[in-house]
């Protein structure tokens, strides 16, 4: 195996747009998005997998981009906060975060938003959580305790958690019994 001086050219598909960029294998997906593509909506918090600020979706699944190497995610569909709004309209979850005060400084918000969108997809697919009563049956309802548990990988130092839970709950209200 050879090292390519100056890195290698990779293709990333982000928010529906194809990009070619040159990166060394050690460049994280987070740094490739921010530094390579100028998509600074995705935030660098702890850079060690502990805070969730860098959460993005890959093929609809939420991951943390700080511990992901960009070279591993070629030709996947990556969604960042810049891709949530459609045709100038905020994603319903973004609107709910504003309405419910789901933020104060806003630094964790992009990660919270992408994490919640990915979390809902997991819930729809029957993924149990550690607070689900019946693992074989899957979760019964997306209760506040289920939301808090499933969102525990996203830290908010301002402590806007009540607003965040309310915003998630309000947005996905039509899908679950409360």
């Amino acid at each position, binding site marked *: 195996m050879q*090292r390519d001086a100056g890195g290698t050219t990779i293709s990333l598909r982000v928010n529906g747009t194809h990009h070619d960029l040159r990166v060394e294998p050690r460049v994280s997906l987070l740094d490739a998005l921010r530094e390579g593509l100028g998509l600074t909506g995705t935030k660098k918090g702890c850079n060690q997998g502990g805070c969730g600020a860098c959460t993005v979706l890959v093929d609809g699944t939420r991951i943390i981009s700080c511990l992901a190497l960009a070279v*591993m995610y070629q030709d996947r569909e990556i969604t960042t906060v810049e891709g949530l709004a459609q045709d100038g309209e905020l994603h319903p979850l973004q609107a709910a975060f504003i309405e419910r005060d789901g933020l104060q400084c806003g630094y964790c918000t992009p990660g919270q938003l992408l994490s919640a969108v990915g979390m809902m997809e*997991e819930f729809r697919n029957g993924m149990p959580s550690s607070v689900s009563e019946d693992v074989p049956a899957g979760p019964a309802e997306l209760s506040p305790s289920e939301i808090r548990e499933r969102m525990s990988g996203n830290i908010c130092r301002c402590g806007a958690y009540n607003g965040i839970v309310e915003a998630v709950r309000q947005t996905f209200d039509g899908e679950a019994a409360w």
Partner: protein
Amino acid sequence: MKDFAYARADNAAAAIDLVSRTPGAKYLGGGTNLVDLMREGIEQPDALVDVTHLSHRIEELDGGGIRIGAAAKNAEVANHRLVRERFPFLSQAIVFGASGQIRNAATVGGNLMQRTRCYYFYDDAARCNKRRPGAGCDAIGGFNRIHAILGTSESCIATHPSDMCVALAASDAVVHVEGSDGARRIPMVDFHRLPGDTPEVDTNLRRDELITAVDLPALPLARNSVYRKVRDRSSYAFAVVSVAAALRVEDGAVEDVRLALGGVAHKPWRAVEAEGVLRGADATEGSFRRAADEELRNARGYAHNAFKIELAKRTIVGVLNGLTDRERAR
């Protein structure tokens, strides 16, 4: 982070070939532990072979067991219908670990290969025999509330942090590995090592051996199983103590049982002594307490973690009481 070469493997043979002939090469799963350790300079591979595109199939085995491809994501395993029905404690253990984002990226093989570790392992200013063999251990005389109480040595008292592996140890899981010398199967309970005087070696894998799959042999009693994790905050924290247990009760007696502990040792701790006491014993709290006492008989507490000995015993008793109640309701 030091620069390194990267290659994506399309099949196991190609991955093994690359790693076996590239000095300093390692396999790369989801990267959720390895990339972090590389950023800290603790791991410094010269090359990474990405094995996330190898088999991630989860399939039924003849007789009712399950085979899990090593590249399956932790979350895929937790939410698989067969796993949820037949090994609910494995689903539970996985969703008790890390965060949703990490479980979506981390592979099964990578979960097994994450380093056994503690705060001092990460702290470059501290002595750590795992990081630098022979340097000494600052955890033994330091802050050791989260550390091991079973199977420790004078070299290391770190714990293996996986929840998933505790349920696998209780399930009699078998790890399939392949290397340049051929393929072999390693029982889960023999996969990880106690520290002894070589704490820098976490597993019994040879350098170029690749985990290809994990088998869960049929275990009907695992339908009545549970994973309980005791931790300092209710989510996204390592276990102080955890228990994975499966229990079958007939006519008021323990017909069969599987029991493993997490957060207490350098490896997932299969509670063989307790199982021996329990088999055939009355399914009563008195028996459960005797079994727990037997398992923890050789436990050793350090300055801040001696409470774990009693906590482990009570967690075992609590879990077995709960499973017995479920058996009575059956």
